[in-house]
């Protein structure tokens, strides 16, 4: 009988404690939060123009490619390929700038070319300067070499 009495006391205490802690059915409130739009950047293709430049008496000229600077975040990868066999002659990058336009001067010496009458394509690809894996569409422009008596020149368009 004494044991039963103690058991009753313990049970009573447990029930009391549970009652103090209240119900497990709690109130709640929900709210949705919808943000505005998150939009990723997009790199557009360049629209380059080609101009014959310089040269003594019109010879030993170079070509100057110019296009609008699409974003100060962009840099531009360029590559020159020989049309005849697709071999890459040269390549490089024009660093990002805040200028309104970008220029790329190409000379025969820069391209290490020694033969005239070579048709070339110059491709220009915008890319993010801090994430070069993101690239825009490439655009190509045609140039060619001209072999003169005084040396090798370049010109816009095909030979």
């Amino acid at each position, binding site marked *: 009988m004494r044991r039963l009495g103690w058991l009753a006391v313990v049970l009573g205490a447990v029930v009391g404690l549970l009652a103090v802690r*209240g119900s497990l059915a709690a109130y*709640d*409130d*929900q709210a949705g939060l919808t943000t*505005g*739009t998150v939009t990723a950047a997009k790199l557009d293709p360049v629209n380059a123009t080609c101009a014959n430049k310089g040269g003594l008496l019109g010879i030993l000229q170079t070509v100057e490619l110019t296009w609008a600077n699409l974003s100060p975040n962009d840099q531009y990868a360029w590559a020159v390929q020989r049309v005849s066999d697709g071999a890459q002659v040269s390549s490089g990058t024009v660093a990002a700038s805040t200028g309104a336009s970008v220029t790329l001067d190409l000379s025969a010496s820069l391209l290490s070319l020694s033969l005239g009458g070579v048709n070339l394509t110059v491709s220009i690809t915008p890319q993010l300067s*801090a*994430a070069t*894996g993101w690239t825009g569409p490439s655009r190509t422009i045609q140039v060619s070499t001209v072999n003169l008596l005084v040396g090798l020149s370049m010109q816009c368009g095909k030979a």
Partner: protein
Amino acid sequence: MAEAGRHAAVGVSRRGFGPTLAALGALLVLLVGLSPRSSFALWNDTSTMTGGTIHAGSMDLRLATTLAQGAQGAGTDYAASDITVTNLTPGESYAFPVTVTDAGDADFSLTATVVQAAGWSFTADNPVTVQLFTGAAKTTDTTYPVQQGCDGSPLTAAPVAVAGSPQAVVPPTRVGHGQGLALCLVVAMSSSAGNGNQGQHGALSFAVTATQVTS
């Protein structure tokens, strides 16, 4: 004589029980009369006490960004149109202040999930991430590549990719009633986000829940 004496003794004994029984009977009557159970006819009195009205408390989760506080009332949404990012690129992160206020009558435990809202067009590898921190948003960095952050501690161990199914971004976090909790939301793009995400867009939909703390 011996016989006569024996009868006499018996006679004396019989005479002695009478008073004893009478005394016991009187005592019994007295005890019964004193007992509270003695009568079924009780006097009584009743009165009614009317207490004041008991109003149930309520939970009231309110949200605010740089816009006015909103989401008052159960299940009300908050349009955080100020949380907007344009020209997001891989590796960039933008921070925004978000304040959660417990305007109800009890402490609550805050949880939240995030999911892609309708119109999401980013690639399936879920390149957009979010992470919530305590503290204030640090938004001073505005030059590419933007790397904004927060001055508090992260609520999740790592940024959470925003997916098509809800992802937990706030583990149970206690907020005292009448108090506000300043949080900082970082929206970022994974540095490995693919080219296919260029020009894509989407909004983030958070489901914020406040559950009353009962202990």
